[in-house]
């Protein structure tokens, strides 16, 4: 390497400094980690029950309720961000951790209003001494009212901002979204983390929608598919599961609660665990109140479109493997043997099939293609899809379906 090259190398190396630098460096404790965002409709500004005891903060909130000027138009959204107050967190082995101050408010929920989220975002920054940081955003809670008006506008900022992650969970709540963030959880410090972690239990309860997130919602919105998002409702200190919120294009049209949510999950092949119950295979014995339960280990659904000329029908094959988990009011004369299991299988198959059909009908009545039929048709019969894609919304409610359920019982329990 001669002298000239060396000089050039040094110059190039020093130019690196300009690419990025110390000015990007913010100490970890100087950032406001926004854990949750709640999006509400404005007006009115959502009330803040948690801060009732804290009058000064409450007054401050009220002060901002009045200052709602925006640059263009009138404010339509109220966005609340949840920032953890690290000092009050229950951290292991830190002297700062507020063990005695268990009643201290652990989060600072800042609400600002506006009609563009980036503007709200920037106005939030005026109220905190820390730098808002969205990469640890756990949940976005959207109120039903906003969802019914359409998500495309509400989520635009969240997909464009580089600090957002597409794995962020989206929830729809029936009341004010801010109330969800106001929940004071019993175990976790922050409502956002509590909410984000509830979907872990999807492998125990099939009614919990666990697999849809920001990225998926956006993908569905832009491809014009109908989709669903997990729905919740809140009490003072608890967040309850409310099944799924159903979306047609980007607008919410209804709820799918309980069994419907289970079936939707099964049709999307994301059923990772849950319980199906059925009545006992009744014979001459009185077993009126008898219930037997199937603990599902594996559920596999195959949807096949059957095209005959211009007609379309769907064949749905559901294979379920599970354990015989429980029998309540078991008729004592019945032994759990091969014959009994055979009959139990049939009973389970029947009850599951009934549910599926019920849900399909319900969805067809609501004209929401939450069961994935359109997507299946698009991938498996692209030629036919091209012909019908413009009138699919008309065809869908009357589509014929055939449901076949096959249940396989693997275990009947440990104790003989």
């Amino acid at each position, binding site marked *: 390497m001669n002298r000239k090259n060396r000089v050039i190398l040094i110059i190039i190396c020093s130019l690196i400094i300009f690419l*990025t630098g110390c000015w*990007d*460096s913010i100490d*970890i404790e100087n950032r406001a980690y926004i854990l949750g965002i709640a999006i509400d409709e404005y007006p009115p500004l959502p009330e803040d029950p948690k801060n009732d005891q804290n009058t000064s903060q409450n007054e401050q909130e009220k002060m901002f309720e009045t200052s709602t000027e925006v640059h263009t138009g009138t404010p339509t959204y109220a966005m609340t961000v949840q920032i953890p107050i*690290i000092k009050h*967190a229950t*951290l292991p082995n830190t002297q*700062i951790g507020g063990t005695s101050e268990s009643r201290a408010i652990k989060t600072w929920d800042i609400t600002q209003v506006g009609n563009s989220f980036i503007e709200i975002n920037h106005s939030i920054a005026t109220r905190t001494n820390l730098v808002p*940081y969205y990469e*640890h955003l756990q949940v976005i809670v959207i109120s039903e009212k906003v969802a019914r008006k359409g998500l495309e506008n509400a989520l635009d900022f969240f997909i464009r901002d580089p600090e957002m992650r597409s794995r962020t969970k989206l929830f729809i709540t029936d009341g004010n979204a801010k109330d969800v963030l106001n929940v004071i959880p019993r175990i976790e410090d922050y409502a956002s983390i509590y909410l984000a972690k509830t979907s872990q239990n999807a492998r125990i309860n099939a009614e919990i929608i666990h697999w849809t997130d920001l990225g998926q919602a956006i993908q569905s919105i832009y491809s014009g598919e109908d989709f669903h998002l997990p729905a919740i409702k809140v009490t003072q200190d608890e967040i309850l599961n409310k099944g799924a919120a159903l979306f047609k294009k980007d607008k919410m049209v209804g709820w799918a609660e309980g069994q419907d949510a289970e079936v939707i999950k099964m049709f999307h092949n994301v059923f990772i665990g849950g319980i199906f119950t059925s009545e006992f295979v009744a014979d001459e014995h009185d077993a009126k109140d008898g219930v037997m339960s199937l603990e599902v280990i594996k559920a596999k659904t195959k949807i096949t479109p059957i095209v005959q000329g211009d007609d379309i029908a769907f064949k749905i094959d559901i294979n379920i493997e599970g354990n015989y988990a429980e029998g309540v009011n078991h008729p004592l004369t019945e032994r759990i043997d091969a014959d009994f299991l055979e009959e139990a299988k049939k009973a389970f198959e029947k009850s599951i099939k009934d549910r599926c059909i019920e849900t399909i009908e319900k969805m067809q009545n609501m004209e929401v293609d939450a069961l994935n039929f359109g997507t299946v048709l698009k991938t498996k019969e692209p030629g036919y899809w091209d012909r019908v894609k413009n009138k699919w919304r008309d065809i869908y409610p009357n589509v014929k379906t055939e449901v076949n359920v096959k249940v396989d019982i693997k275990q009947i329990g440990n104790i003989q």
Partner: protein
Amino acid sequence: MSIYKKRTSKKNVDVNSYNSIQNKIATLKNFMNNSTDIRERRFKVGGKDVDIAIVFIDNLVDGYMVQDHIIKPIMSNSFEWPTNSDYASILETIKDYMLYGDIVDEVYTLDEMSKGILEGKTLLLIEGSSKALLINTQSLPKRSIEEPQTEPAVKGPNEGFIESLKDNLALIRKRLKNPNLYVEIIHMGKQTNNKAALIYIKGTVNNKIATEVRSKLNSVKDYDIVSSEQLMDLMCPKPFSIFPLIQWTERPDKAVSCLLEGKVGVIYDNSRGMLIAPVTLSNLMQSPDDYYENLFIGTAITTIRYLSLLISIFLPAIYIAVTSFHPGMLPTTLLLSITGARVGVPMHAFFEALFMAITLEILQEAGIRLPKVVGQTVSIVGGLVIGQSVVEAGIISPIMVIIISVTAISSFAIPNYSLSLSTRVLRIIFMILAAILGAFGISLGVLYLLGYMCSLRSFGIGFMEPITPYRFKDWKDSIFVAPQFFLKNRPEYLHSSYETKRKGNSKNGK
């Protein structure tokens, strides 16, 4: 300078010109600046009236040996002297029939004589002869063989090299009873007159490496150095290299296995270690313990060691980069607990890390320098200051204490001390890069470091062999530790003359 001139000017003076033994001794003493520890003893040959004298430095010789092996047999000889024997033949007779010494050399010049005396030999002068005899009566102070201090091993021999060339060579010879083991003594230093020994197995070694080491050694011949570590520095192919390009070991078993692989060793008299060239990164990361355990344990330990190398270079830098540039890379719960630990800490993560790293360095340095008796104090004070008080005072976050302690422990797990020192330097460099440029800076640094490491060559052998150039065959003896059964071939990267370890080679090199 004047002394040097004096010596050189009289270097080849023939003692013969000063006939009387008195003159000879006086000249010799004068040549050696009349140091008062130079002793002479004059006596007569038994049965002959011939003056004879011995000259020696009394601290360097074994007094009993001088009395019993030189003076006694000459004085009390019962040799039947021929009548007309001249002085030269008397000297021959003394040498052939009387001296018990194992090494007896004939010397003629002042230079040779003084060198011999300085090495602890006894000079025997006889009146009227131009010749003199140097008899080996060396008894140099030295340590007994002890456990190697810088490279302890759990299993394996506990013998370590000591500060004596003779003993160190013996430690090697006794493990390697091979006629092809070649030792070449090279005198080093104009003033120190020390000896260095070049050692390799002829027929096994790659001759190019041997020649290069020899020529390097010869080129630094005139430097007055006192230890093999300085020699290592002088011989280093790239003096500004961060990594050691010559291995220093004080374990004879390691030295011997390196010689068997076809490497070249250099032992410098009066220093504890043996230098081994060439060296690769994987050599530096090996410890004899790897070979004393089975495949799985050896490989697992080696892996842990590479991991600790990475940790000790990168961990503080990654911490700085993540906490001040990319907190999004952390899991949320970890982030919240790190944040909680850092709340109220006044310093930026970089200065925090720098403060701790410097404290650690000072502590390590103090621990080495202090006498062992007081050493305890350092560890207690250091442990309290670093571990507790700093955190309680709120100057440093507890997380940083963990980071720095893990880093320090990792750097102790690196088997080669020089390499662990280089990681300390690299650690600081990477910390600065991380503080300025974040993860981008770290990745730039890693790229540069990799390029740099690949460009290093130790006596013609790449530092990163066998990882690059890619020689998968050699991995079994570097990254993995295969059972001995598989290690029958010598490492490919050394290009040894003979391939198999087990076959060895006969005396003729066939």
